[in-house]
């Protein structure tokens, strides 16, 4: 058919297939969230009678009221905010200090350090050596246990190094002629030009800290738990790590509550996402150029 009417460059079958796939992708990405939102705003009776699908039935905010009345929720939410903020801050400081000297590939020793960085992307201490290091540093039970070990991420570091390398070299030369030393150059010349890169890397890092639950589980005490770990504990009472706590198991109220926690804990990311999206993508590409 297609080659018979040779309208060059047009193939309706292909177009139809593409649109079908794309609409499927859109639905697949959005519907699960709509379902959870619907659950979170529906009455437990409606959930019990299986009447909820993509729209709230007997709209009410009871689940959210219960979640907000649960003191541990705000505690956990606050913890997450603190970990995310300081984790990201420390990480950015460390990585800028690391990336600037490493961006100079004629600096003696630079290639050795780069080799160390790259090698550590493919081989490292497993779970146990890391765990034992943290405990012998006496960090277990402190916030530092989940912040410090993740301050330098090799992938993000390479993104930063590539960004710095892409800046015109003349800028730095001019600054040196003006008498700025390396610290001055870093702070006054490089850093202001690095905002887009820092936004990218900062966002990756912030998302990592926001979403973490595992390291909180193995290193922190229950009053230090972040919101993702709280969610996990609310959601599962049956897994092998069985210290599931949280809201009662009256099944159908629990479903609305779980949904409400899923929504509230994911909301910041979903809300910020449209604004930050361009940075995410940019970073992914810069990191991929030479990784």
């Amino acid at each position, binding site marked *: 058919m297609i080659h018979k009417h040779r309208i060059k460059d047009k193939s309706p079958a292909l177009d139809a297939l593409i649109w079908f*796939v794309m609409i499927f992708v859109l639905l697949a990405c959005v519907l699960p969230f709509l379902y959870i939102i619907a659950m979170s705003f529906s009455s437990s009776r409606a959930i019990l009678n299986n009447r909820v699908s993509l729209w709230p039935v007997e709209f009410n905010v009871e689940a959210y009221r219960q979640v907000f009345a649960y003191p541990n929720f705000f505690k956990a939410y606050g913890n997450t905010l603190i970990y995310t903020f300081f984790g990201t801050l420390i990480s950015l400081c*460390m990585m800028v200090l690391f990336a600037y000297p490493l961006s100079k590939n*004629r600096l003696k020793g630079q290639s050795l350090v780069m080799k160390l960085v790259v090698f550590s992307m493919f081989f490292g*201490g497993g779970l146990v050596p890391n765990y034992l290091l943290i*405990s012998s540093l006496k960090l277990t039970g402190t916030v530092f246990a989940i912040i410090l*070990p993740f301050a*330098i991420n090799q992938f993000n570091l390479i993104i930063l190094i590539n960004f710095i390398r892409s800046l015109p070299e003349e800028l730095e030369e001019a600054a*040196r002629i003006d008498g700025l030393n390396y610290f001055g150059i870093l702070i006054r010349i490089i850093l202001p030009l690095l905002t887009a890169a820092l936004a990218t890397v900062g966002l990756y890092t912030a998302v990592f800290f926001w979403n973490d639950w595992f390291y909180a589980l193995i290193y922190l005490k229950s009053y230090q738990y972040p919101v993702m770990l709280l969610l996990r504990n609310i959601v599962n009472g049956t897994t092998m790590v069985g210290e599931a706590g949280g809201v009662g198991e009256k099944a159908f109220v629990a479903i609305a509550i779980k949904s409400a926690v899923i929504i509230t804990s994911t909301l910041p990311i979903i809300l910020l996402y449209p604004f930050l999206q361009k940075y995410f*993508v940019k970073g992914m590409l810069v990191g991929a150029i030479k990784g």
Partner: protein
Amino acid sequence: MKQKTASPPPAKGVSAKRYFINHWQLYAMLLLPLAYFLLFKYVPMFGNILAFRRFRPLTGPFGVRWEGLRYFNQFLGQPDFWRAFRNTLTLSAMNLIINFPVPIIFAILLNELRSLRFKKLVQTVSYIPRFVSTVVVVSILMELLSPSSGVLNRVIQQITGNPPVFYMNEAAYFRPLYILTDMWQYSGWSAIIYLAAITGIDADMFEAARIDGASRTQMIWYITLPTIMPTIMVMFILKVGHLLSLGFEKVLLMYTPSNSVVSDIIDTYVYRMSIAATAPQYSYATAIGLFSGVIGLILVSSSNYLSRRLTGESIY
């Protein structure tokens, strides 16, 4: 001293001392992050030595006495370990085979979209799952599949009248669910790299093909695919190199005693034997971790070597 170029020049003719005086500030900057990096990445790497040494509580992470290959012999003779090993390879290989081509196809199809605004919309939406926590992904999955209230069971029940199935608890569904959620979470995001590669293709090539009367499908097959092949190759190497490292956190969240036949992978086994155990066997678990780490390293370097020989593309 002031007219130095921005990048430190090659050290020819400059004494080491002089060189250091000129550039000490760069080294000063490096000091803190490097120490930090070595502490948190390389100390644990050397902590692998525990695989050969007996652990005693409160005596540090490196153990107290040489035990040779004792812990290796222990796990190599342990059916549970081999089960975890097989599960890891099976799940990982299935995941690779099914999920590796998806972002490539997605990127190619996206690129064929003529409406730029719709393309942008699909891209934006398809990246979202990447930023959602694994906990949230698994929680949503549990709700969708719940035997009592989940929408899937409800729909199936209405159509076929079959009784509800507790999917999260059934060993048979573990792998498909793991692979599907991975597809959901990462396909859009992984497509970025291929999209960028496709965008980089010289437009003249398509123009020439069009003049020669090539159809769009032919152009995809004979231009787009071959041109992005190097990118595909590099991504494939990376994936093969990480064959033994699955999404440990997701597996842990999906793990139940009844699906453990297939869901107990190396990482969860290590975790169960050490941190999660009432009587942790740290040396034993480290030995397993080291074993899988070394295999991973071998996989990465050999697939990298192969790719360099076959396609001229490599990651380092």
